[in-house]
């Protein structure tokens, strides 16, 4: 970022927006927006709060299980769709419908099926994340140059070697891109799932704070979740950049 001809680090932009937030908060235009400093103290309060720890624990485990399922289902399904025409034709339509469908709408049905607990949240996370992982993996596998496959065959690669030594690695850039988008959708899945159920994890806290107009704590929670989503997507991004050198030429 350059201001008045001077180079200024990017995070400075964030700093400016914090100041704007602080000023708007101080003007007390809206009780919904407390000053940013109050949100920061709220955050501090949250981090020492047992209720928050418990909620975080539940949410995080739901997220992990849900993502685990999404990865274990999404990557193999994407690979199969990329390799086997029949699977592609059978599953393709549904995957494409679900990837853009407003899945929040089916959560009430999930609640009826799976109860008002963690299982529903795990399933919601999986449902939010799995499709984009599948689609990107499929695209990656479809992109593999046919001569790499022929090369492996001509040197006598078995099925397992073909998939584990060639296809997986060749599709890795797309798989990671899908994973990054899937993780972000998964975070959304946890929040939306818990908000709708409203009696578990962070969703319960959101409900509690907004109903009691504890806006500083409410915003602190929002900022923390945003930060979490940002950090995990950056972690995957880091790995994506490690394979970027060959993404352009396969």
């Amino acid at each position, binding site marked *: 970022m350059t201001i008045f001809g001077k180079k200024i680090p990017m995070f400075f932009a964030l700093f400016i927006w914090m100041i704007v937030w602080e000023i708007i908060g101080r003007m007390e235009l809206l009780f919904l927006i407390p000053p940013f400093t109050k949100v920061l103290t709220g955050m501090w309060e949250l981090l020492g709060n047992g209720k928050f720890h418990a909620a975080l624990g539940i949410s995080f485990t739901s997220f992990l299980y849900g993502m685990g399922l999404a990865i274990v289902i999404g990557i193999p399904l994407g690979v199969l769709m990329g390799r086997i025409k029949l699977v592609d034709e059978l599953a393709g339509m549904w995957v494409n419908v679900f990837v853009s469908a407003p899945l929040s709408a089916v959560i009430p049905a999930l609640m009826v099926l799976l109860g008002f607990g963690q299982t529903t949240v795990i399933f919601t996370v999986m449902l939010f994340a799995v499709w984009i992982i599948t689609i990107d993996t499929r695209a990656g596998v479809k992109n593999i140059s046919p*001569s790499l496959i022929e*090369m492996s065959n*001509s*040197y*006598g690669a078995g099925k397992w070697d073909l998939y584990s*030594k060639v296809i997986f690695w060749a599709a890795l850039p797309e798989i990671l891109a899908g994973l990054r988008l899937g993780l972000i959708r998964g975070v959304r899945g946890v929040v939306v799932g818990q908000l709708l159920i409203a009696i578990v994890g962070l969703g319960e806290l959101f409900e509690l704070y907004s109903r009691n107009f504890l806006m500083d704590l409410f915003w602190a929670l929002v900022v923390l979740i945003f930060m979490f989503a940002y950090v995990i997507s950056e972690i995957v991004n880091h790995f994506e950049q490690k394979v970027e050198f060959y993404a352009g*030429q396969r």
Partner: protein
Amino acid sequence: MQSQVVTTEHIIEVKGISKTYDGGVEAIKNIDLQIPRGELTTLLGPSGCGKTTLLKIIAGLLPPSGGEVLINNKPVHGPGPERAFVFQDFALLPWATVLRNVSFGLELRKMPKAQRHEIARKYISEVGLDGFENSYPHELSGGMRQRVGLARALTVDSDILLMDEPFASVDEQTRRKLQDDLLKLLQIEKKTVIFVTHSIEEAVYVSDKVVLLGPRPSSVMKIIDTGLDHIKSDGDIRRDKHYLDLVEDLWLILKQYLT
């Protein structure tokens, strides 16, 4: 690992091979061909005539629609250890170093790492890539990448080298250097080579025998023994009257098929 060597004059026999692709495109029709052991045979023909199709059928990468291919008198049902393929687009693993790429054929044969790396280093040196063992393909020029592809094909110690327009995607100067280096290499490594190209000069320059294929659905039009001594003349072949005549003769035949 190697099956016992059956010495016949013709290491490869192509018997009545036809290939019709799904959708009805007839690429090659009833091809009979005998490839003598230890020679370099070129498949030459107008573009799109099915040269590569024939090579891939011999490699066992494509099933023929009719006919059969015999290697050492045994029918081909897929790729085998006695044949190694060199690809037009190199087909290197972009995430693997030169060393791993060159030893990849051996890796697939479950050879222990130390052993396969030792063999790979020998061939990396033989193709002139000393010092590039730990480079990645994207760090190499096109010519160097094909040297990696060639080294990989040599490590597996097969009798037959199948080369699919191996020098088509490099520039003219590099191509000439690669042709010379290939000919020198073949003096050390006794191989039977089938070489696909659409360049008449390249075909005559590198081969003992040129098989001229006609337009689609292609069959064998003519087989020419070049009778050139590739090594002795050491690059002077291009001035040789006989070489120039052959190039011209082939051009006169091929010209008829161009529109």
